[in-house]
């Protein structure tokens, strides 16, 4: 093993100079590994909570006009860097047969907007006509996020009933569910007329990716806690009690995520690169630490055992994921004595990473998330590198020789796929005419492949590579595209890969073996989600903000200490 130059967490080093131990894109950007990711302290929810805590943000109830069944409207506001943001919630009855988490839904238990400032009554009246319609409504640039959530039928009523009788809800049911409501869409960045990201991107606290969406979800979680307490109190004013702080902290907000999230990673290669590069830089920096001090040893040991407990509480009905969790529990248990030895050594975190190399991918990724967790401010500074408003663009004077070299060096994975095999062309991604729901079809048995979305990156690379062989090396890209405009899209991506090497998922996304769930887990781990609960290979449930401090706990010194939460 080659050891890196010795330094400690306190040594300053430039982010521009990448550590020698950084994992290469060819290793990291494979679907199977992306689909094994865990949240880290760089995850977007963690970033938001740190900001709310540092700013000592305070939540206020501005409006609470709900009937005894919890139907009506409410406004919760929170301040961040001197600005107020308000969650406006509308709740309504919903029959079981209409409760679907899919995009094709037309009604929900609750609907929301995050409003820029404190809304006036006229704003609430206007939005009450629009927000319950979600995509069919129309919004203004005063609205920053649009969302909706459905109740967990098994938990919501139970919690109301228990609280109304002055009792706390069943501990095991809380543990197995983890949320009172789950969001089924969280729209930002200009959708349906709400504000473009550009409006808030330069604001303090909002420059990082998905911070405004994460804020909306955090406030929805707060709303659900208040909602069950309100209904319980109405049901039994004399006997009702409040939900305990411990359970509130454990109850996150659920989320159902489907295929729509997957193409995002493909259509935002620069953003994906920046997320990955920050994450991998953090991992590499931690691996190059020479020695842990006693505080770090104590911290990482506690985190090891917390992760162990977390794994024991991770439940899913998905057979594949259940097997992976079972394997991971055994592997995590197996390294316990070695782990405690290793942290005493030189380059302990590097040794821990090396230790997991012979284990499952989930084991490897859990370990790298663990070692990043003991990083402090220096690691957290990397979050400033995780944003980008740049899209891939053409470098028109690049020679074809240079372009061919990028393909040779960075797209070998694409050239190695045999597209003469039917299985490698098996799937196509498309948008359904019904509410524009993203879907995945089978090319040889379903109509619509001629309208597929451009996720066939590897196939396009191969087509370009074949055509480039017919052209002179000294020709420049602009002239080549003049003759072949159909390659403009893939050339943009390839040229972008020369300066954003982590921007491409290095697998065949239309092959029979492609599992979209891997892309979903990758993106959701960057959000900060854990306890992935796949419902198929293209659909998953998760819980957001589980273990995160509630608004009344943001002032506590341990507000950032909620990686892989455990209910005890």
């Amino acid at each position: 093993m080659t050891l890196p130059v010795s330094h400690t967490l306190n040594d300053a080093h430039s982010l521009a100079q990448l550590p020698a131990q950084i994992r290469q894109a060819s290793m990291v950007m494979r679907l199977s590994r992306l689909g094994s990711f865990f949240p880290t302290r760089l995850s977007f929810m963690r970033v938001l909570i740190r900001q709310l805590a540092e700013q000592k943000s305070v939540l206020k109830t501005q409006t609470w006009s709900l009937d005894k069944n919890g139907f009506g409207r409410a406004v919760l506001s929170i301040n961040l860097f001197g600005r107020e943001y308000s969650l406006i919630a509308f709740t309504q009855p919903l029959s079981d047969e209409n409760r679907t988490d899919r995009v094709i839904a037309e009604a929900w238990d609750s609907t929301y907007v995050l409003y820029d400032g404190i809304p006036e009554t006229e704003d609430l009246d206007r939005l009450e006509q629009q927000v319950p319609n979600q995509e069919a409504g129309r919004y203004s640039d005063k609205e920053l996020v649009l969302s909706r959530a459905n109740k967990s039928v098994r938990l919501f009523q139970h919690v109301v009933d228990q609280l109304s009788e002055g009792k706390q809800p069943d501990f095991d049911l809380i543990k197995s569910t983890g949320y009172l409501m789950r969001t089924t869409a969280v729209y930002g960045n200009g959708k349906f007329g709400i504000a473009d990201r550009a409006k808030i991107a330069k604001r303090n606290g909002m420059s990082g990716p998905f911070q405004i969406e994460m804020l909306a979800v955090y406030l929805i979680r707060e709303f659900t806690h208040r909602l069950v307490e309100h209904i319980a109190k109405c049901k039994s004013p004399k006997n009702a009690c409040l939900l305990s702080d411990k359970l509130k902290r454990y109850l996150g907000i659920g989320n159902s995520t489907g295929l729509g999230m997957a193409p995002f990673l493909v259509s935002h290669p620069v953003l994906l690169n920046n997320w990955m590069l920050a994450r991998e830089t953090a991992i590499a920096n931690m691996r190059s630490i020479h020695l842990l001090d006693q505080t770090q040893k104590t911290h990482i040991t506690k985190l090891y055992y917390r992760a162990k407990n977390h794994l024991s509480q991770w439940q899913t009905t998905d057979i594949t994921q259940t097997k992976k969790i079972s394997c991971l529990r055994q592997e995590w248990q197996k390294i316990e004595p070695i782990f405690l030895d290793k942290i005493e050594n030189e380059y302990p975190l590097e040794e821990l990473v090396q230790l997991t190399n012979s284990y499952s991918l989930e084991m490897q990724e859990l370990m790298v998330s663990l070692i990043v967790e003991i990083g402090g401010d220096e690691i957290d500074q990397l979050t400033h590198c995780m944003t980008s408003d740049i899209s891939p663009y053409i470098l028109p004077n690049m020679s074809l020789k240079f372009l061919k070299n990028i393909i040779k060096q960075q797209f070998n994975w694409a050239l190695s796929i045999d597209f003469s095999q039917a299985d490698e062309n098996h799937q196509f991604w498309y948008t359904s005419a019904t509410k524009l729901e993203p879907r995945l079809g089978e090319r040889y048995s379903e109509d619509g492949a001629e309208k597929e979305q451009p996720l066939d990156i590897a196939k396009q690379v191969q087509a370009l590579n074949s055509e480039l062989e017919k052209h002179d090396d000294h020709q420049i890209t602009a002239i080549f595209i003049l003759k072949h405009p159909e390659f403009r899209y893939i050339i943009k991506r390839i040229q972008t890969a020369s300066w954003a090497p982590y921007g491409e998922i290095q697998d065949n996304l239309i092959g029979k073996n492609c599992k979209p769930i891997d892309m979903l887990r990758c993106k959701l781990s960057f959000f900060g989600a854990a306890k992935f609960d796949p419902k198929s290979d293209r659909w998953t449930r998760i819980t957001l903000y589980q273990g995160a401090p509630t608004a009344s706990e943001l002032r506590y010194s341990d507000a950032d200490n909620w990686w892989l939460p455990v209910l005890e």
Partner: protein
Amino acid sequence: MFRSFSETVFLCYKACVGGGVDIGTAQDIAVSTTLIGTYQNEIFGQLPDLISAPQNKQHITNTFSKTANFESVLAVHNGLFLADCLQSNLLEEIKIKEIDNILLFVGICLHLVTEFSWDILIDDKFVVRISNKNLSADLAFLASGGAKNITIQKSDETNKSLIHLKPTSTIFIDAENWHALNRLAAHTYVDETMHSRISGAGAGLTDND
């Protein structure tokens, strides 16, 4: 109705693809159209016809000269190439006999030509300057559609006669124009079947957990 920048880019992109424009071109035309549209003009009403214009491939015969002449330019199909030539410094001056939409071409330059400042002249009259994504123009220019005798040249920035224009943050688009773009975009959507409804998203139809 007022539209956000993002939703406008998205619809223009879909409309381009639905109208048969290749993906890479559609991406750049969508951003270019929306950028010039933030200066409040008729570009969104004009875009469907520009998309459906029959393709007319351009040729450069002498790549050693910094000046090139073009006869008939279609903004959607040829505009990106001209912008690439300016951005790469392959050309320092372009003369166009006729272009089907000068507004969109200026939008393309705003989007893609970030190197140097450029002046655009129509019939030898100075009408537009593009400099680092900023637009200065003769106000009458915003009512333009097709144009003849256009010169694009590197600017020495001495002529200060144009008005610096500020883009709007939201864009007003006439309902009829929006629907026309939507009709083109609809060609990219796949009609639902019972099979695709049940299996295409990988999730069930109800979720009462």
